[in-house]
């Protein structure tokens, strides 16, 4: 890796997830195979077909004061907490606009995405309108529900003036945000970009709507066994909530300030299926094109890839299409890739997935350890790949790379690649 301004590195991480209120506790949960899925105990859950979800391990209201939570959608609260952690983890002590900052605010960006935006704010405020009348609707409703709200609030927090962006591509949104951030640095628009994904959609309407698409597991009897990627008995995803955010930085900028470097952010591969609004393309052709784009547009070698944090949401079609795509593009190289499906523990965070799974991928390289996949009791024979099950697995020494896949309704395919820097 060269320390130039076109090479991008990861210098900070933050997470607020069903497994923990920060990146360290989340990682501890992942490598120990802990499930964050629980039975929903809210009154509204009693009468709907899916009564399981993976709530954040910590309530954001225990971290952020009430006068701030009342003007932030839950998705923005998650993003802000994770971004603050990542920012401090990168060694930054103040906002870029504050005196003594080591970052030029004009060279600092924020790219934070969610799949659905402030959906609970929208629905809750409509309830307020119907039940309490016009005067009671919060004047903060619009800035809370707009999908760019998490990005804008993170940008305000750190003083980002190079650009604040929110790519939206359903469950690929968080990964697309990180890819966008890598390009902001590579093309010279910014030195530092805070990027990630967040989602807060645990509410009866999204759950019923996903459930009516036949996309969700209905295993209410055994919540922690419900998210079971690659297992023959998988019956859909489990909804999770939370955020994962990283600090991306040009290698030159990181070296100049003596920053600790987790790994290199090599680049992204992108494609779209042109197949169906919600169904995965069954042969994996679209995903394979995203992988091909990654290897064409970066110096990454297929032989370097030792780990994949798979999209693997635990749906019957999607999990197999992803594996087929890997075989199609990577051939025999798939055999030396330790594949982890961490949604078996966190549930599926939709637009937050790319965020927390990038944090997991970065930490997998950092600790050279691949988290286990839970609930693979009876591996689907169509899954012709090396799935890490049971316990976490050591990754090889020497230079290695890891991929993080994210795909979204609409046929969006995003592959992110990271590589050890030492």
């Amino acid at each position, binding site marked *: 890796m060269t320390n130039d301004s076109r090479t991008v590195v990861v210098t900070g991480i933050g997470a607020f997830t069903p497994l923990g209120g920060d990146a360290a506790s989340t990682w501890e949960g992942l490598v120990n195979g802990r499930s964050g899925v629980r039975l929903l105990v809210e009154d509204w859950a009693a009468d709907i077909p899916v009564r399981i979800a993976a709530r954040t391990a910590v309530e954001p209201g225990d971290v952020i004061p*009430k*006068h701030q939570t*009342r*003007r932030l959608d839950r998705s923005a609260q998650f993003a802000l907490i994770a971004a603050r952690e990542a920012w401090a983890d990168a060694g930054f002590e103040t906002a870029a606009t504050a005196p003594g900052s080591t970052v030029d605010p004009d060279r600092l960006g924020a790219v934070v995405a969610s799949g659905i935006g402030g959906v609970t704010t929208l629905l809750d405020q409509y309830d307020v309108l119907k039940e309490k009348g016009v*005067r*009671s609707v*919060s*004047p*903060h409703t619009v*800035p809370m529900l707009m999908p760019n709200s998490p990005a804008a609030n993170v940008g305000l927090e750190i003083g980002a003036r190079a650009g604040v962006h929110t790519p939206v591509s359903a469950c690929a949104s968080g990964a697309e945000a990180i890819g966008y951030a890598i390009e902001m640095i590579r093309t010279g628009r910014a030195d530092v970009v805070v990027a990630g994904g967040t989602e807060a959609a645990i509410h009866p309407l999204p759950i019923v709507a996903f459930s009516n698409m036949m996309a969700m597991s209905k295993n209410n009897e055994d919540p922690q066994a419900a998210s079971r990627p690659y297992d023959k008995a998988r019956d859909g995803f489990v909804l999770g909530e939370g955020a994962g955010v990283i600090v991306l930085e040009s290698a030159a900028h990181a070296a100049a300030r003596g920053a600790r470097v987790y790994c290199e952010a090599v680049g992204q591969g992108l494609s779209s299926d042109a197949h169906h609004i919600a169904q995965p393309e069954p042969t994996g052709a679209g995903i394979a094109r995203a992988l091909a784009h990654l290897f064409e547009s970066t110096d990454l070698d297929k032989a370097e890839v030792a780990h994949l944090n798979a999209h693997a949401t635990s749906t019957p079609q999607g999990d197999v299409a992803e594996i087929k795509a890997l075989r199609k593009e990577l051939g025999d190289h798939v055999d030396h890739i330790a594949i982890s499906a961490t949604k078996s523990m966190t549930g599926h965070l939709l637009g937050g997935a790319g965020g927390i799974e990038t944090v997991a991928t970065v930490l997998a390289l950092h600790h050279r350890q691949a988290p286990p996949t839970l609930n693979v009791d009876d591996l689907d024979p169509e899954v012709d790949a090396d799935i890490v099950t049971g316990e976490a697995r050591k990754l090889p020494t020497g230079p290695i790379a890891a991929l993080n896949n994210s795909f979204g309704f609409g046929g969006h395919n995003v592959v992110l690649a990271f590589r050890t820097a030492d």
Partner: protein
Amino acid sequence: MATKDEVLSGLAEIVNEIAGIPAEDVELDKSFTDDLDVDSLSMVEVVVAAEERFGVKIPDDEVKNLKTVGDAVDFILANS
């Protein structure tokens, strides 16, 4: 009919809830915007909460005249 002190302490509770400012810092000469971190959106919340609490109607075009806590206390006392 509330006294001036009762209206002030009620408004202080509202500002504390909405802007996170300690209630004891909400004094008659304080400006909502400059001293109490109440921006134009949060001011709408303060107004709606004050209307409910004191049973008073504060018209939209009156809100711009309520620059200090004292302005709001006087308006509430004169109109409730």
